[in-house]
């Protein structure tokens, strides 16, 4: 029989895997994920007034390659769609 370690006070106790426990685990996971994301994303009040330009500059360099990649895929995808549309017309 599979067993799960429980979280919190009873972590040394072994208990049976139940749906409610799994749901708890999921909720915990999402809460932690949310908090991590929120901390990462929401800017603290802010020294950005000092020089927001540098952060923008660096940010653009970082995202450009990702966006460039997505753009390439998008362009290919459009060409594929065009090709099939042409085929249909013909």
């Amino acid at each position: 029989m599979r067993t799960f370690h429980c979280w919190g006070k009873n972590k040394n106790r072994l208990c049976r895997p139940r749906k409610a426990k799994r749901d708890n685990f999921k909720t915990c996971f999402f809460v932690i994920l949310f908090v991590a994301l929120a901390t990462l994303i929401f800017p603290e009040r802010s020294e950005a007034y000092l020089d927001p330009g540098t952060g923008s500059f660096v940010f653009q360099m970082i995202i450009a390659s990702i966006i460039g990649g997505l753009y390439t895929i998008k362009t290919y995808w459009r060409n594929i769609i065009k090709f099939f549309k042409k085929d249909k017309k013909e």
Partner: protein
Amino acid sequence: MKLAQKSSFRDPCGFLLRHEDILYREILSKGAPDYQRLMTSRLYNSLVESEMLVAHSEIAPPFDVSPDHFKTIKPYEIDFISYPYEWSFSQLRDAALLTLKITTTSLDHGMILKDASAYNVQFHHGKPIFIDTLSFTHYKEGAIWPAYRQFCQHFLAPLALMSKCDVRLSGLLSNNIDGIPLDLASTLLPFKTLLDFSLFLHIHMHARSQRKYADKNDLPDIKKNNVSNKSLRGLLDSLETAINKLNWKPIGTEWSDYYLDTNYSETALAEKRKAVQLFIDKCHAEQIWDLGANTGMFSLVAAQTGANVISFDIDPGAVEKHYLHAREKGIRNVLPLLQDLNNPSTNIGWALQERNSLIKRGPADICLVLALIHHLAISNNVPLIEVARFLQQIAKMIIIEFVPKEDSQVKRLLATREDIFPNYTQKCFEEAFSQCFKIVARQQLNESNRSIYLMEAIQ
């Protein structure tokens, strides 16, 4: 006398100036290479032919030029300068899309926009047009887009706030002359915008990055350009997608259904239209301002004379509807703008000289002040003489409608408040306005207790 315009003083490549009331742009030697490239690369022709960039002609300067003068150009002058905080949602959106389109077209010709200020766009013949000839610079393969931050602050952040929070947040643009700070936008935007990839990236993460590097000394090597042309086009495409996804529909705003809720019979409305038409024809105006224009019923009457009509209203919904209607019908001489007459646009920017107040952009040849006086005098407690003094500053002639206390619209305003307006009578109205205006004509409307006046400002 040569008078440099404060709207362009930041640019080391050149500046705007006014000489004998004509607008010129002096290009300095620093701006020469980029200007020559713009003219020889066919980019200028391509943009002017598609009505995206304002045309100009090179002239011999009729004034003393600066020591490092290169050329003087005379740009086609826009009839009325408006500002982003006076635009409706779709106007700002169209201006954003134009800026992106110009950047992409520039890339095709080996150039790029070095700034993306919303103040570089104006409305001309019903469409947005780019007015800064010196914003174009040589594009070197691998370079980043220097205007990315400005585009996000001037266009994406205000549009996102208008679309996702409240359309009235466009007012933040008048407090933040270089666009809405991204950390502020990120704080104000609702949580669900984190799930929108474009806004997550260009606003939330962008703001985060700004904060991270604001006070850092150990910066990455930012002089090393390493953004490929394809990536740059990807960035522009991503911004265009972000802008296109944002929308706002004027439902249930304050005035946008006002015409359905007035006390005019069809006859009285037709008569009012006829009276306004007749008075406008008497004046031969080139520029007409319609104050409290709503969705523009009487602006259209004014536009039929061929004059340029600027239609102001306090309600973003009414301005949006008016703009969309004018755009759809291809009306070229009506410009709807947002304006709160109880607190009109003031001079803002460096030394309060960068962007002009409403008064400074006047006076108009004619101001239409129809069904408005009761809102100013009763809703906002402005004495009639003060209304007259203000109108005298912004118009040479006015066509004004007096709405008496017996009118159902005024009764409605007074229904929930004490009547502290014993002087709000037609007689007092005429007396007050006679101090600032000469009454040229007056017409009582049949089937209505309202009157329309044509008045000329006393200089």
